[in-house]
């Protein structure tokens, strides 16, 4: 069993790695960063600031009138803070292992307790609540029928229950199209019968009888948090998925440019988490925001890049989408040194009141894994 499993593991990794087409990337030579003189760096700073200013001005002037119209139609002006149970708890690995074992045993004895993922795609309609939060979803869907084929690859394990007939193409830029889809079940959790919780607790209690009392208590407390999260996820599974696909192709191209978030996550951060990446070689910050967000201010620290000074960009959403080229991203060789994620994000509502203001830190893994 062991040998065959390890061989299977090896074959799967081999096949996957072999299939990856690595674009050729000749060594660019000693980096421009190392050779660039101080005056060139200063020039870079000025250019970065100028680019940021142009981007912000263009965004405001081009989309202002459309934005105003769509926002007036929206009913949601607040950004409530979701409860702690809305987010997967960060549990010690040992406890998580015990909890998952208990879940498996319970599911084996009582299959309805499995809480499996729902179907990946559906032709149904998103709830009124989801449509109320995003103006784009109140517009008629306009994506071609082939969108399902586009999404099959990237969502190979998401189980997001996407409403494929409600897909919107919201932007075509830098050779790619941005799709937004309402998702019936981002977390992949489904409701289970009420008996399942106590059954899981009993299963875990049986597992931990030989552990010291403190560890038993710790594992059971961790399970309680985990079950609370699963219950919340099953009750509030909806969210948004969004991603870029190269125009005119039949597959989505970049892993960094597709993401999903539950409405709770969107409320917590005010933006679709971890949604920056490169489009056509250009580092961009893009995200999806609910109607309540009227302006997004991004502070780029410029740490570790040729840009020594911070740059601030303010962008207004268009059709619930915020898109801004990363000001100094262009200085990095092939984006290698670009800080594509802002160090601080400030969100304002339609009264220009700050509704979220937070520094992005490495611990915010549910917001951005690259920060």
């Amino acid at each position, binding site marked *: *069993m*062991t040998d065959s*499993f*390890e061989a*299977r*593991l*090896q*074959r*799967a*990794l*081999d*096949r*996957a*790695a072999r*299939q*990856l*087409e*690595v*674009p050729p*990337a*000749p*060594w660019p*030579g*000693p*980096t421009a960063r190392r050779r660039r003189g101080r005056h060139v760096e200063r020039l870079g700073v000025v250019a970065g600031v100028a680019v940021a200013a142009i981007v912000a001005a263009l965004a405001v002037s081009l989309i202002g009138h459309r934005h105003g119209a769509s926002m007036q139609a929206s009913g949601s002006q607040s950004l409530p803070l979701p409860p702690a149970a809305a987010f*997967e708890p960060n549990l010690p690995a040992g406890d998580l*292992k015990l909890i998952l074992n208990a879940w*498996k045993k319970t*599911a*084996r004895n009582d299959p309805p307790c499995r809480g499996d993922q729902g179907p990946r795609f559906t032709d149904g309609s998103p709830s009124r609540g989801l449509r109320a939060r995003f103006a784009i979803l109140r517009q008629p869907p306009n994506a071609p029928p082939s969108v399902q084929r586009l999404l099959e*690859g*990237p*969502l*190979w*394990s*998401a*189980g997001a229950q996407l409403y494929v007939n409600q897909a919107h193409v919201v932007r075509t830029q830098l050779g790619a199209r941005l799709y937004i889809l309402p998702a019936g079940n981002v977390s*992949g959790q489904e409701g289970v019968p009420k008996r399942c919780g106590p059954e899981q607790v009993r299963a875990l209690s049986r597992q931990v009888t030989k552990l010291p009392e403190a560890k038993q208590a710790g594992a059971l407390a961790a399970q309680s948090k985990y079950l609370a999260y699963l219950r919340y996820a099953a009750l509030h599974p909806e969210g948004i*998925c969004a*991603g870029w696909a190269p125009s005119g192709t039949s*597959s989505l*191209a*970049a*892993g*960094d*440019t*597709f*993401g*999903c978030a539950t409405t709770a996550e969107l409320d917590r951060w005010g933006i679709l988490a*971890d949604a920056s*990446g*490169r489009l056509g070689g250009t580092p961009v910050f893009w995200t999806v925001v609910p109607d309540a967000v009227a302006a997004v201010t991004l502070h780029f620290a410029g740490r570790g890049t040729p840009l020594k000074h911070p740059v601030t960009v303010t962008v207004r959403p268009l059709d619930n989408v915020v898109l801004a080229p990363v000001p100094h991203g262009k200085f990095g060789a*092939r984006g*290698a*040194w670009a800080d594509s994620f802002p160090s601080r994000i400030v969100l304002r509502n339609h009264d220009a009141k700050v509704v979220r203001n937070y520094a992005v830190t*490495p611990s915010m*893994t*549910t917001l951005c*894994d*690259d920060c």
Partner: protein
Amino acid sequence: VKSAQLPNPREVGSKAFARFYEREYDRAVRLAWLLTGSLAAAEDVVQDAMTGVYRAFDRIESPQAYLHRAVVNRARSRRRDERRQRARAAMAEGPVRLDPADADLLALIARLPYRQRVVIVTRYWGGWSEKEIARALGCRPGTVKSLASRALDRLRQEVEP
């Protein structure tokens, strides 16, 4: 012999590095891709790692080991939230069309804690020895053994509940 005809040591170093880069780039990107699940992230990780190798090229004994460690460390900084990992394009990106069984297995690997993932990928794809993995992770070979054992246990439990 005129001094102008002598090769410039810096140029010699650059050429040697260029050869090293040509030889190692492709495999390093594949490694980083298996660790991060994203081609764009993998390319960035390797470019950063290669820059580090370039800077230290003249003084390091084993550029390959240095590169391995740099790739593993930099890929780590691109931590993936486990649930997000399932909801993103991950390894299905671009031209890669995985067999569903492989895709499921790779999804499970992607959900492993980072050090366990490194051990699985480098051991079963990279063919690295325990010593090499330990050097890349900055831990003892014994730790690699236990990480491998825990990772395999976890994967088996998921695949064969």
